């Protein structure tokens, strides 16, 4: 009995340590942001909100935050529209090459973003869209599309296709059966996919490095530029704010995802797949 209990304890300790490791870097920045000193030492000494005050008064951070929304929201909207169409075609279309189609649609999620970034650069340059909002929106929509596709596909698979057939025998044509039956059924998948696409754009660095300039740069890019220069608690304050905002999005996703069994695993995974292009 004793060795069994011992191994259980070891296993439990291992699990706790792993979770501590997972949470450590996310949580370490929060206390740093309230430090009263200008260098980073842990644990921080003193308490102050001066880094947050400094942020509020800084135009560069305010612009970057605004840019992140100006780029993220339209990018997510485009990703939602196109990703939903693709999911409908693949899930309901009985297409001959569906497997290959899925592999191609999901590809932007799998490839290193640096390749897409240096490819999009000349394409957007030719179109006169480089360094502008439109160009950045396009780039972020490309990587958001597969997320919406995966999310909506899961939602479509999650309910009985007989419902659409029933709507049709009831006299609803394709468009009306989509808006009256299909869309209400998959709206959580669509919303969830949209949040994922937005979160991905909000956290994306590589495309922003190539496709934006100092006027259109996003928060991750500004953080990146500051990180290379100096480590101050200002960044910890930004990080804490973004962290809080991400948790808000995660909470929203959890609420929208309720009742969708496919949600936790495949979605969270898909989310992160792009987010992880660290």
């Amino acid at each position, binding site marked *: 009995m004793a060795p069994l209990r011992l191994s259980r304890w070891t296993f439990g300790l291992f699990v706790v340590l792993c979770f501590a490791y997972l949470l450590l870097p*996310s949580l370490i920045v929060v206390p740093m942001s309230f430090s009263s000193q200008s260098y*980073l030492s*842990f644990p921080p000494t003193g308490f102050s909100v001066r880094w947050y005050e400094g942020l509020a008064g800084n135009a560069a951070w305010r612009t970057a935050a605004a840019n992140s929304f100006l780029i993220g929201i339209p990018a997510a909207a485009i990703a939602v529209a196109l990703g939903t169409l693709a999911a409908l075609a693949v899930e309901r279309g009985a297409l001959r090459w569906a497997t290959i189609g899925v592999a191609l649609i999901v590809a932007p999620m799998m490839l290193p973003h*640096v390749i897409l970034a240096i490819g999009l650069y000349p394409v957007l340059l030719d179109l006169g869209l480089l360094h502008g909002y439109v160009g950045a929106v396009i780039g972020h929509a490309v990587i958001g599309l597969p997320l919406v596709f995966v999310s909506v596909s899961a939602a479509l698979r999650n309910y009985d296709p007989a419902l659409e057939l029933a709507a049709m025998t009831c006299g609803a044509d394709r468009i009306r059966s989509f808006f009256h039956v299909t869309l209400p059924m998959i709206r959580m998948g669509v919303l969830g996919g949209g949040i994922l696409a937005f979160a991905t754009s*909000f956290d994306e*660095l590589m495309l922003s490095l190539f496709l934006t300039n100092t006027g259109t740069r996003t928060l991750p890019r500004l953080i990146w530029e500051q990180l290379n220069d100096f480590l101050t608690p200002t960044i910890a304050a930004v990080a804490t704010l973004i*962290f809080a905002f991400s948790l808000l999005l995660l909470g929203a996703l959890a609420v929208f995802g309720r009742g969708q069994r496919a949600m936790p695993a495949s979605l969270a995974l898909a989310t992160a797949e792009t987010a992880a*292009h*660290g």
Partner: protein
Amino acid sequence: MAEREAAGRRPWSLHHGNAVLLLPPGLFLLAFFFWPLLRVALRSVTEPALGLENYARVFGPGPYVRVLWQTVETAGFVTVLCLLLAYPLAYAVSRAEGTRLRLMMIFVLIPLWTSVVIRSYGWMIVFQRQGVLNDVLLSLGLTGTRLTLLPGSLAVHAGMVHIMLPFMILPLVASMRGIDHSLLRAADVLGAPPYRRFLEVFLPLSLPGVSAGVALVFMTSLGFFITPALLGGPQLMMAAVLIEEKANIELDWPLASALATTLLLITTALYLVYLRLTRGRAPLLGR
């Protein structure tokens, strides 16, 4: 009447016209994903002159092959570490129920939802000379002087494993939760001791999750940029960092394109293997 005539004698089909829905997303991806990738590949063999000159530079003597090799090596190492940590962790998650399960899932999801830049920043705080790790090592007496861990491979590996761990855990949890527990009970009843029950029943049934997770982590690790750039420095250079530097700083686009094309081919090959392994039913794709 008009509609009827337009339809003609052709039987109406549920699937007719559904392929049209693919047109907008298809054209969008064609213009802004596949065409850019093709441009990269074309550029690598046409600039500055038509030929394989850029590839000769990539594969010739010089640091580039070493960086590519180091990229693959690091990705492989990170994948193995992730699997070793994630398998028992996923087992714990898969056996949990109720509040404990929800709490564990939140613990897995929080880092996943934290910006990668921010997490790398967190690791910088941990690994710097005046950082947490050095404090702990000093106070435990494990080291006499503060160690220079940044930039360094320990920091890169810790940061990368941290980012990739949830990707290994989630497919593993998905496949472990799918295992019918009556099979394990059946193995018990049939007289299998716990380790045989694990080796001959549980492990084989969890393999789909293992292969999905391994492929996913390895593929993604190949493209890592932020973590190696911030924590790695010149000793642990990875492909994406090199490509960004060549293009954005040195403006050597032909070489950057050749490097990117090589990385693209490696990743595509792996992607194909992954699709084949999962027969298009990757847990990741939810199919």
